[in-house]
């Protein structure tokens, strides 16, 4: 994998959050303030634009640029969280031109650590962590078992989606949804939902590049 992987990952995210924009807005309206779809769409549109202006950079630098762009265009909770996540992930790759599956796991693990550090959320708090953490763990485990990257990413995306659904029955303890107390139960977390889209986009980008 290389810079092109990152670029097509970001393009896939852009396309899928745009396609799911209204759905994310709806989910956020139910237990938040109804802007998550707009936030993610605004942010990743800016990321795609920013990457276009920086064609020659190595993959780590592109991730850092993507993260910086999110921080400076999204706002809200998701801007700093995803922004720091991509910046931390990018730093793992340094100036390398290519990276392998094992390094991809470290990128995602650094992203997860950064989200948890900044937001102090754990699995079960009904946040994006509920989708991101199982995805990272599943990818790490499958690769350790010798599963090839493609199927391993498919399992990671499925794990993120399962994590996303796992937010439905629980009560939020972080983010705006926590203000609702028990009324947050029964609703799927918007940030976990877009996180599942982000991991699914990664899987698609990698499959595409290898086909």
């Amino acid at each position, binding site marked *: 994998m290389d810079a092109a992987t990152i670029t097509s990952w970001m393009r896939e995210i852009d396309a899928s959050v745009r396609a799911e924009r209204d759905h994310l807005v709806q989910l956020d309206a139910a237990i938040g303030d*109804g802007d998550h779809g*707009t936030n993610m769409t605004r942010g990743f549109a800016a990321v795609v634009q920013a990457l276009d202006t920086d064609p020659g950079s190595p993959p780590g630098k592109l991730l850092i640029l993507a993260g910086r762009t999110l*921080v400076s265009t999204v706002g*809200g909770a998701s801007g*700093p969280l995803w922004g720091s996540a991509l910046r931390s992930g990018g730093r793992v790759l340094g100036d390398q031109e290519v990276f392998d599956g094992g390094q991809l796991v470290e990128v995602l693990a650094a992203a997860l650590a950064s989200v948890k550090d900044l937001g102090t959320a754990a699995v079960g708090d009904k946040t994006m962590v509920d989708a991101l953490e199982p995805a990272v763990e599943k990818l790490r485990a499958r690769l350790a078992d010798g599963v090839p990257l493609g199927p391993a990413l498919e399992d990671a995306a499925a794990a993120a989606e399962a994590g996303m659904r796992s937010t439905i029955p629980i009560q939020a303890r972080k983010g705006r949804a926590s203000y*609702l107390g028990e009324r947050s139960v029964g609703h799927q977390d918007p940030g976990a939902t877009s996180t599942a889209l982000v991991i699914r986009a990664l899987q698609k980008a990698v499959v595409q590049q290898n086909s």
Partner: protein
Amino acid sequence: MAVETNQMRKFLNDPARVVKESLAGLAAAHGDLLRYDVAKQIIVRKDAPKKGKVALISGGGSGHEPLHGGFVGLGMLDAACPGEVFTSPVPEQMLAATKAVDGGAGVVHIVKNYTGDVLNFKMAAEDAADEGIKVTSVVIDDDVAVQDSLYTAGRRGVGATVLAEKIAGAAAESGADLAKVTDIVKRVNDRSRSFGVALSSCVPPASGKAIFDLPEGQVELGIGIHGEPGRRRAPLGSATEVVDVIVEAVLSDLKPKRGSKVLAFVNGMGGTPLLELYLLYGEVDKKLRAAGMEPVRNLVGSYITSLEMAGASLTVLELDEELTKYWDAPVHTAALRWGV
């Protein structure tokens, strides 16, 4: 008029530009007080930076007007950072505002306790420190509807924000140093509690849809300022009954001393007429007196809002002499003005 019609019950051109166009209007109306830096999307006091004066900035999502841009001016904020509607601004705005107002004596960031605001302000404060500016941050979290806990996001920042900006702004104007001004913001927050109720939701321009539906005859109890539903829904009682619930929620948490002098702030959420706000104030005033408080200062109006939401909130601040003195000090902003 246009063939393509605007399908929202709003005056706007393009939902993506509503904040910018509103800020341009604010600046056009109040050019004597403030300027709008379009590129950086910040509202800055006309005469900033003021050498030697501690500066105050605040910010957050838009849709809460007059908060915060309407509070930029003499004796209150030095700058405001408006985000998109109900979306925290980004660290670049806060950094730009911090740099624009720093007069060498330091800058206080007044941050409402929402994950987005807290995280973005945190990044900006780190960047400002890197550039050698002394910055302190105070997080406002006065909303008693939300149970406080180590394991949750904690309480929201609501009405106390307005009071803290006014009172600490006066302290800064009078020459207090960074530690002192920071302490005043904290003190106002510590001694304030708020509780809000809604009779309708509101429609963010970007989505064009109400955040929730509330049938007539129902009330959302324990709402914040982002058009979100409250902690629970109940049949709407009389104004007296609603005020009973609100005052009880505030006082049982604030636990003011008997005989305390308080400031009672009855705030409209944007769509509630003054006729009703004063009716509520009358009930609040009676109830506070019955509970042994003395409401020696008050503020009645729509100062921290959720677009056109129908609803109201009460903030009670237990005053002391110093806070009272700074409340009374001159202020000249678009939305609050006295003594000048």
